[in-house]
């Protein structure tokens, strides 16, 4: 990996998060909305807060955001705040910090995304590899088309159907949420089991749909490896067929899947957010829905910024470790 590539790649990362932050800053100003004032007067008109309080709050916000200062200063202060993950107060949950509201939800989403992604990648790559392997059972070839058909449907639509059949009708799983209401999240086994039970259907709706996505890429690469000269020589060596499959086929075909996973991450996360909405799962997605419904702009901008940042970071990490996994690549120019 050359230093130039490393710098370039990190530069792109900062460019993306700078773009995301700037977007959040510029858009309300172009649209000429003062979200805080609007929301406050909305609350005041409903009698949720007394008007005296409202003014104090607006003052507070304006001061925090430096809205009384020149635009460039506002912008710099804004960027500085975002760089420190300081998104101010949540409007709906005032006086809670946006940061701590998000911190409650983030672990749920992280765990759900990570575990589902790992499972779908492994299952998808296994299926794709076996479908392309001449010696494998016909079963995989039969399994492939329905799984591919499923992959075209958005996660959360599959999720709705899963809820109906497995939670409502068969009552195998709880109807939604992240844990049984009434229990308090703790570090004990009982809670983990409960949380796992709640996570199975959301995870399943992500996995079922994504297997096809990962399988088709793997199948293509696996077909390619079979035409490679090294496969022919390996066969001429009299290597056993499982070795040809695993060490000459899969080992070579799986590496490019990491890149396509990185590219799909944004898509996966968007999907997961909607899955959470369907299941009322207590992660970022449900929080986003709340923020939208409450016109909680600060929370909304915070969530969007953090999601974009997480994905950019994950992509950066994958891009940086990829060359370490693939000895062919000394530095990885993205084609």
């Amino acid at each position, binding site marked *: 990996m050359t230093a130039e590539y490393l710098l370039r790649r990190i530069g792109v990362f900062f460019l993306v998060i700078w773009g995301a932050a700037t977007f959040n800053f510029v858009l309300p100003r172009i649209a000429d909305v003062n979200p805080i004032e609007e929301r406050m007067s909305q609350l005041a008109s409903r009698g949720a807060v007394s008007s005296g309080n409202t003014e104090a709050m607006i003052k507070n916000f304006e001061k925090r955001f430096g809205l009384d200062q020149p635009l460039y200063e506002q912008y710099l202060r804004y960027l500085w705040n975002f760089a420190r993950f300081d998104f101010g107060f949540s409007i709906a949950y005032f006086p809670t910090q946006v940061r701590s509201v998000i911190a409650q939800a983030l672990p749920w989403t992280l765990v759900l995304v990570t575990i589902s992604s790992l499972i779908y990648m492994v299952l998808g790559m296994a299926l794709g590899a076996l479908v392309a392997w*001449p010696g494998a059972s016909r079963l995989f070839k039969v399994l492939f088309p329905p799984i591919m058909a499923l992959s075209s449907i958005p996660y959360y639509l599959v999720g709705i159907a899963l809820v109906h059949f497995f939670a409502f009708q068969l009552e195998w799983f709880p109807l939604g949420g992240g844990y049984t209401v009434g229990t308090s999240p703790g570090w004990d086994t009982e809670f983990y089991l409960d949380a796992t039970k709640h996570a199975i259907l959301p995870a399943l709706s992500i996995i079922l749909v994504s297997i096809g996505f990962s399988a088709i890429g793997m199948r293509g690469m696996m077909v390619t490896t079979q035409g*490679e*000269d*090294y496969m*022919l*020589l*390996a*066969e*001429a*060596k*009299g*290597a*056993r067929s499982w*070795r040809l499959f695993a*060490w*000459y086929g899969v*080992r*070579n075909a799986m*590496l490019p899947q990491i890149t396509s996973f990185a590219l799909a991450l944004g898509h996966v996360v968007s999907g997961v957010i909607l899955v959470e909405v369907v299941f009322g799962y207590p992660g970022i997605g449900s929080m986003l829905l709340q923020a939208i419904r409450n016109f909680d702009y600060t929370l909304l901008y915070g969530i969007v910024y953090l999601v974009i940042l997480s994905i950019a970071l994950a992509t950066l990490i994958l891009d940086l470790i990829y060359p370490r996994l*693939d*000895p*062919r690549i000394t530095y990885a120019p993205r084609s």
Partner: protein
Amino acid sequence: MAASTNGPQSPALDVKNLGVSYFTSSGEVKAADGVTFSIMSGKRMGLVGESGSGKTTTALALMRLIKPPGRITSGTAVIDNTDLLSLNDEEMRNAKLSKIALVPQGAMNSLNPVAKVKNQIIDGLRDHDADYSANQYRELINELLTKVGLSPQVGDMYPHELSGGMKQRVTIAIAISMGPNVIIADEPTSALDVVVQRQIMETLAELQEELGAAILLIGHDIGLMAQFVDTLGVMYAGRLVETGTLRQLLREPKHPYTQMLIDSLPSLERQDRKRGDLRGIPGTAPSLYALPSGCPFHPRCPQAMDICPSEEPVLKVVNDDNQSEQLAACLLY
């Protein structure tokens, strides 16, 4: 390079009536048809022909590496009293490396890019139930690498760290790792520069002599081959059209195709020919989908006769000097 003369006079590889066909939507395509030849132990045979003539198909068929829609349709290939073509898959897998080994075409991509060289050598041994300790493996690999002229450190390198010539040496190390009776070298040097080509061929020849193995060298470069082989076979449109010793074929080629092939060479033994006085073979290689009737060479043959389009020639003895027969499939004889 002198042709080797040691070794017992029994065929190391005896191929009879080998046929390979591809079954495509437009019918059966005979990529190799009735190919018959044998190589004595310790000898080197060359197989030449234009691309599409069936030489690589023959090599792959002997290794049983023909993939669908291709299939071996007939023939026997006997090594050590065993017919490779009638072995079951597991027996054939065991015969690879131990009886017959391949030095592949296109060494540039013949090694697994994500595995270290030593592991690629071990893979072959391990799957033949070689029961070695880690130390024995290391010693064996060092020995093999040294034999092919590489430093033992190469074992710990990845293919992309090696030059083309070094990669080809590694494939040779793999091929000799179990001391096979027959080594098939399929244009082993086609992607390399001339100096490296020669060095590699010398290494291959030395090791083959040491093992007493036979070599079948596939290629289209008669010039390179002439420096290396004892006997020569010429293929055209999936058939073997002429075989004989190198001397016989170079001095007195009988088949018109062989004659034209030899004539098309830049000065080899005939010093009198001026530079640039090269002759090509008129016409193009026939499509295997629509072979000319009778002798497939007749449309390009300067000596074609009236019967050529209607009768298929078979290999016949055309010259029999005391020890070796020269055979040609041509209606002239």
